[in-house]
């Protein structure tokens, strides 16, 4: 294959990565933005979503699309519920203290990951894609499902954005993000907003994971990479800025796809991580964000 088609392929792969990453990072960004909680267990919500997707899809026989649809609905719900319980039992009791919640979510990371290891095992398991249509381009065939992932992600991000900017729920969330005390004194149930946001953040990660399992198998350690990449995206995009998060996910996802085709992935990851740490050190408001509050 010559350079042009090769680059096109790499870009398409990058867009798939970016689509899933944007959804996952959006969840992390939302939780940080509204609650000021850095959720280190975010990657485990992603992993749990993938593993549950496998579990639900095996419940149904017949056309693979049925199992997939079931997973797409149920898996995020269960993950959201788990997050809700964790929020009520742990984060709320810590009064959302930033440092304590990080330590607690590290604990949560191990609990989820190791529970999955116990009940699901160390194997990697695939979920069959709901359809196997291939689009034939002049140079190569490309999976129709992957294009569906991109489209689905765009739709979900648009929906989230609409909820945040156009609805009362979004208004309440933004008010809470802007000033917790004032929001409380205006009668906003901050406590319930926090619980909802934490669950929603986890559900976004779970949806992303359900979308990706037909491409990448479910495994109990698969949460680490999305966690680190989401951190990278959220930091570059500016902590808590949704628009920045999407832009950064696109940048990281596409460049990750392109870079990993041409360079050693370890070196690429190393440099990316280092550069992002430097962004956090020298430009904590992110590359696209305005000044942090």
């Amino acid at each position, binding site marked *: 294959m010559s350079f042009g088609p090769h680059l096109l392929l790499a870009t398409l792969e990058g867009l798939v990565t970016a689509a899933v990453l944007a959804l996952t990072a959006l969840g992390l960004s939302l939780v940080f933005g509204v609650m000021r909680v*850095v959720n280190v267990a975010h990657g485990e919500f992603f992993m749990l979503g993938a593993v549950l997707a496998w579990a639900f899809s095996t419940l149904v026989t017949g056309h693979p699309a049925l199992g997939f649809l079931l997973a797409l609905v149920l898996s995020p719900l269960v993950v959201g519920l788990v997050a809700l319980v964790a929020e009520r039992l*742990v984060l709320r*009791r*810590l009064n959302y203290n*930033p*440092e*304590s919640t*990080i*330590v*607690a979510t*590290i*604990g*949560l*990371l*191990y*609990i*989820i*990951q*190791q*529970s999955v*290891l*116990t009940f699901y095992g160390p194997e990697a398991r695939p979920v069959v894609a709901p359809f196997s249509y291939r689009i034939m381009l002049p140079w190569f065939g490309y999976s129709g499902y992957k294009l569906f992932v991109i489209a689905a992600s765009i739709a979900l991000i648009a929906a989230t954005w609409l909820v945040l900017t156009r609805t009362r729920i979004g208004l309440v969330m933004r008010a809470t993000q802007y000033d917790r005390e004032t929001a409380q004194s205006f009668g906003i149930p901050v406590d319930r907003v926090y619980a909802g946001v934490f669950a929603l953040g986890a559900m976004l990660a779970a949806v992303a994971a359900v979308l990706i399992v037909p491409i990448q198998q479910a495994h109990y350690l698969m949460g*680490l990479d999305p966690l*680190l990449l989401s*951190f990278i995206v959220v*930091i570059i995009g500016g902590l808590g800025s949704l628009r920045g998060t999407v832009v950064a996910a696109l940048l990281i996802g596409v460049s990750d796809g392109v870079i990993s085709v041409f360079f*050693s992935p*370890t*070196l690429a*990851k*190393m440099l990316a*991580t*280092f550069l*992002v*740490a*430097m962004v*956090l*050190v*020298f430009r*904590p408001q992110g590359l696209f964000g305005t000044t942090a509050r």
Partner: protein
Amino acid sequence: MSGHAPDGAGSASKAWALHAVVILGLLSLHVLLPDYHHGIAARIMVLAVFAMGYNLLFGYTGLLSLGHAMFFAAGLYGAGLPVYHLGWSVPVAFATGIACGGLLALAVGVLALRTTGVAFMIVTMMFSQVAYLMIYWLGDWTRGDEGLTLSRSERIVELGPIFLDLTDRDTRFLLAWALFSAVLVLTVFIARSPFGRVLVAIRENEERTRMLGYNAFANKLSAVVLSGLVCAMAGAAYGLLFGYVGATFGSIQYSILPLLWVLLGGAATTLGPLIGTYFMFYIVDFTQGFLRAYMLLVGVALILLVLFFPKGILGTIRERWLKWLP
């Protein structure tokens, strides 16, 4: 936090007596313990040094790092690679490992200390991740996950009349004990020194400390470097004493473990790191026998500690009963 205070002299002698008892008690384990636990005790003492290094920064200075695995790994590889590839002698390699940790800590400190709180935690974690990936990137020398095993001939120390065989269980135990004791005494000195008081003051109220004429940045940087040196010392000793140098020790897990040990034993207590390491090591060792997912316990322990027991074992004892505990 007594010390110069009017009741200083009495509490100082009590504290020193307690540490002497602990150090001698550990030495007595050398003859008391059966083989299996003897080996574990040697490991725990080295890992407790790691925890004490972490405690200097987290406990006393109040800086929560999520990347201390990089300092342990710097010591581990800084000592292990020259021995394995260049045939350096053990003492020189040990010193090299410590120096690597110190230099790394200086570089990381200068950068990471521009941030505070949550950002500091994430930046240190990311730097540590870079170091971890570097171990794989340099796979030709480090052999990544598989790691390097140091042979017996590489672990013999001959210094004039001194001959030490680091593969010998007694030698190993006594060296681990000596290292632990030295670092424990060092920690007590630091905790009681003016420098240690400034670190505590920075932890309690950085702005006020600055307005009393102290250079907060320089003091915090010193704490990072000191902490990095001690953790690298633990890493170097671990590699040389137990003969294995592998990438696992650079993973995030080894940044979380010292945090857990210190939280459990009691942050900003001199003996907390030892107690926390001992407890956690045995809990994990015990459950590993029948539970594959033993890290589950680490998760549960972290959450329970942070929720119900944030001062840890010794911190709580100090608060309730023994105010003089350093």
